[in-house]
């Protein structure tokens, strides 16, 4: 098993009510698989929200396998400015 930290911002934080949480995942779990889990865990609250994935603080546009200790963020539309 591996542990990953999921960082929560904006609507993701609002849905879960926390800044981050740690998940224990099977070895070989990918970013898209994790996204599915996270969306499920949100009970529909993230259904209409597009999320980009950042692994270890870098946008990761393709589906990749996660490693133990990775920091993953599901990034809702950004709103700087």
């Amino acid at each position, binding site marked *: 098993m591996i542990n990953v930290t999921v960082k929560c911002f904006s609507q993701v934080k609002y849905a879960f009510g926390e800044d981050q949480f740690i998940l224990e995942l099977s070895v070989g779990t990918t970013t898209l698989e994790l996204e599915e889990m996270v969306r499920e865990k949100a009970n529909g609250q993230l259904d209409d929200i597009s999320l980009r994935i*950042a692994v270890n603080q870098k946008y990761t546009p393709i589906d990749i396998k996660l490693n133990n200790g990775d920091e993953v963020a599901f990034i*809702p539309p950004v709103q700087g400015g």
Partner: protein
Amino acid sequence: MIKIEITEGLITFFKNDDSRKQDGAELIFNGRVRATEHGDSILALEYEQYEGMAEVELTQLAKNTCEKFPINDLFCKHRIGKVSVGETSLHVVIWSKHRQEGIDAMSWFIIELKKRVPIWKWAILQDGSRIPSECNH
């Protein structure tokens, strides 16, 4: 040259500089908080950042802008935390030889910032409640 700062509390503007010899154009943009967000009256916005990544992305974007446009300097401060109505959340200064290249660079830089820099707005409503703003333009 690039200067990037993500900062809490009132933004201190970059200083006036009369010492430059070849920069005919200084363009400054201040993005300010409006009292209305999606039709709702607000007291303030609260900006949230992905600490670390926001600064890296903003710095990378500033470099991209300096490569893409013939400008000499791009300085940017983005405020996070609570920003009251009227106050500046984003302060950008671009120095270039001529005017048009600075205008084009400013326009592109801010459009891209709003696409890729992980910063978000929470609206603080009249009743004090705090919700993620869905505004994204």
